């Protein structure tokens, strides 16, 4: 669910960042009040935990694996405000140091994964726990909360994608950023999350909380007294808006061809996972001639193509030679692959 740069317009990114500022401010204030004992180290270590949790591969039926996000889990364990900060720091490190998720899109990613997912998940969990007063009620709350948390976060990402072609077009009517309207982006993002990722998140969250409850129940965050406040109001508003968005685009529901849906859905399924493989067929210079003529003097185009060609050749040569070297003295033991 990590949105890379350039899928969203800079304006959307700026807007999402602006939305996050008051949320972060409030979260920092709340954490200072609530977590009196171990404040700063807990936030850092909590962020490290959140980061590593996203590295865990969870088994899926059929022998494949998927990733958990853990927004609701952290909210249940640390409280929603501390979870918000921990996930924010984890996302920051992923974007800034590991190149996973965009830097400009940081605000949007935080909105989906550090705000919507933990707060909504926690709200649903609290709501059910307070109304069904039993052990079962609590686990039911965690299950539904985490399922809702990740799915609404995916829906938010889908809406962010889907409004791009509506808002940002050039004079010829071509989309400048993500070209898919809501009618495509919503099903592409939500269907895999509803069917697979949400279920993984739910089972994983319940299992971890159950383990910690059994082993060390005192470590789990005790909820604050007050419940409904501005942030929950905002989330509730979002939940109400979401179906409206679906309804508004409902007319376009039957318009896409089957191939296209399949493509987009299988693509969406792996969103958040980056295929890490080298492509031998990557041919940069071949792309250039067709498009390099536009607004540059011809000679500059040649020079540019030449530099690109030389650079690509050097890089390819070095990559290939390093593979050869690896084969001879391969020491990539079993756990380095």
């Amino acid at each position, binding site marked *: 669910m990590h949105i890379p740069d350039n899928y969203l317009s800079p304006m959307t990114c700026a807007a999402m960042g602006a939305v996050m500022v008051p949320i972060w401010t409030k979260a920092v204030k709340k954490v200072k009040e609530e977590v009196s004992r171990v404040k700063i180290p807990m936030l850092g270590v909590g962020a490290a935990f959140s980061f590593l949790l996203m590295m865990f591969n969870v088994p899926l039926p059929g022998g494949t694996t998927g990733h958990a996000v853990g927004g609701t889990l952290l909210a249940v364990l640390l409280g929603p405000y501390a979870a918000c900060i921990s996930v924010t720091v984890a996302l920051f490190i992923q974007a800034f140091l590991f190149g996973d998720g965009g830097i400009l899109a940081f605000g949007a990613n935080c909105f989906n994964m550090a705000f919507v997912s933990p707060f909504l998940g926690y709200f649903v969990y609290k709501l059910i726990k307070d109304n069904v007063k039993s052990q079962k009620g609590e686990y039911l709350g965690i299950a539904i909360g985490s399922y809702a948390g990740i799915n609404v976060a995916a829906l938010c990402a889908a809406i962010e994608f889907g409004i791009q072609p509506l808002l940002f077009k050039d004079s010829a009517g071509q989309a400048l950023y993500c070209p898919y309207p809501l009618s495509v982006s919503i099903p592409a993002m939500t269907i895999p999350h509803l069917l697979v990722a949400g279920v993984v998140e739910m089972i994983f969250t319940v299992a971890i909380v159950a*383990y910690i409850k*059994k*082993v*060390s129940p005192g470590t789990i965050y005790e909820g604050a007294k007050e419940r409904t406040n501005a942030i929950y109001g905002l989330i509730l508003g979002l939940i109400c808006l979401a179906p409206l968005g679906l309804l508004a685009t409902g007319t376009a529901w039957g318009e896409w061809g089957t191939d296209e849906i399949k493509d987009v859905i299988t693509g969406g399924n792996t969103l958040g996972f980056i295929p890490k493989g080298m492509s031998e067929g990557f041919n940069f210079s071949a792309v250039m001639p067709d498009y390099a003529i536009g607004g540059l003097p011809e000679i500059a185009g040649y020079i540019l193509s030449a530099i690109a060609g030389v650079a690509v050749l050097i890089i390819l040569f070095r990559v290939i030679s390093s593979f050869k070297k690896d084969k001879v*003295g*391969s*020491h990539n*033991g*079993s*756990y380095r692959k």
Partner: protein
Amino acid sequence: MIEIKNVFYSYLDIIALNNINLEIKPGEAVALMGANGCGKSTLLKLMNGIISPERGSYRFDGEEITHKKLQDSKFSKQLHQRIGFVFQNSDTQLFCSSVFEEIAFGPRQMGLDELEVTKRVKDCLKLLNIENFENRIPYHLSGGEKRKVAIACVMSLNPDVLVLDEPMNGLDPKTQRWLVEFLVKLNKAGKTLIISTHNLELVHEISTRAILFNEEHTIVADMLTKELLKDIDLLKKVNLVDKYYH
């Protein structure tokens, strides 16, 4: 049982094993000794199939262990059943919510029926002198108790070879003494023991043969433990002891 020939291994360009040659026969009790960072732990990892040699060969019971074979889940599972590994940090080895579950984890995976599983768990608890721990939570046990549970959950797999990484570390003298006697008992029962240790006082009791590493990550001595302990010059040379040791 174990045959290691001309093995090299390095982590990100830092050499950890430098031309290691070693043969261990069934029923032996062998101690691996050497200063911190000399490659003992890496060698133990290699024996257990967590890593595979960069160069050279490793044979377990006549069969060569390669990176490719370890990728085969059936093969690596069989290896893991036959050679048990007790980690230096017992905390990392325990992840179930009760001691019973922890010890039953292995036998259950082997497809034994629940009656046999319970018998094995009870026997292991008795063997390690922790009978009343059955329903305790591993996470909250003391260091020594955790070590015992970790050993129990490896024993329940009934491995032929038992590998222990610094088993005496962090234990009080009484528990250390108990562990020595326990290991001797296991060895007499026919289990092959491979133990890495810094404990010069107890090493001759748990092992008959000692392998000494130097700081260049290679083996410099392979002799009777008793004799190695007498060769203080050699121990000084590999920086295991200082000039005040006698």
